[in-house]
């Protein structure tokens, strides 16, 4: 089962997790990314906005889920990413991998989120007080994605 969803609606993790579990494998690993309220000198993040590439995003995520499914023989690969404005504490992204054994589920889950960070066309804009700025890409994300090879 491959499940990809890009939506402005809040992410329902209970529903997504239940769907991944229903694939019948014994091990399900998940990762949830939430909007952090980082304290910076210029104030707390009040709003995070996610822009994406409609069509291109879904295509990139489906490709990623298919790659993970083939590599770890997954019973289920789920990628749900929220877009539009969101507030601290809200979920940005949820990924899940279901496999017969835990090492495959855990590795595939880490792969999905690492590669999503570098391969999927999303862009974050933070608003702190009255100033908005685009979030810069992190070299650490490239390094994390690179450890999985091509």
């Amino acid at each position, binding site marked *: 089962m491959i499940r990809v969803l890009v939506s402005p609606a809040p992410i329902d993790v209970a529903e997504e997790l239940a769907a991944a579990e229903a694939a019948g494998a014994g091990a399900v690993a998940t990762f949830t*990314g939430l909007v952090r309220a980082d304290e910076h000198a210029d104030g707390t993040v009040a709003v995070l906005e*996610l*822009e*994406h*590439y409609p*069509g*291109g995003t879904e*295509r*990139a995520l489906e490709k990623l889920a298919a790659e993970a499914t083939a590599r770890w023989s997954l019973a289920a690969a789920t990628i749900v*990413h929220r877009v539009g404005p969101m507030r601290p504490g809200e979920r*940005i*992204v949820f990924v899940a991998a279901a496999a017969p054994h835990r090492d495959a589920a855990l590795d595939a889950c880490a792969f999905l*989120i690492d590669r*999503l*960070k*570098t*391969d*999927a*066309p*999303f*862009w*974050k*804009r933070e608003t702190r007080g009255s100033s908005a700025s*685009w*979030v*810069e*890409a*992190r070299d650490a994300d490239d390094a994390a994605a690179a450890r999985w090879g091509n």
Partner: protein
Amino acid sequence: MRILYFAWVREGVGTGEEEVDLPATVTTVAALIDWLATRSPAHAAAFAEPARLRAAVDQEFGPLDASVVGAAEVAIFPPVTGG
């Protein structure tokens, strides 16, 4: 050819999408960016640092020397920051 811009590239250029008639001499993403930069000062400013740009040709991510020959849609954008 449909050209799409995202994030600060979109804001810099001043539009998210434009249709262009590409000269046959423009065959790569890098050449396309150079050619687009001549359309307005805003384009030129948005494309001032090609190292900060990424692209997808027909929704397929690729390097700046990827071919755009025959493509219907090219997207130009900053490094991605999702997840």
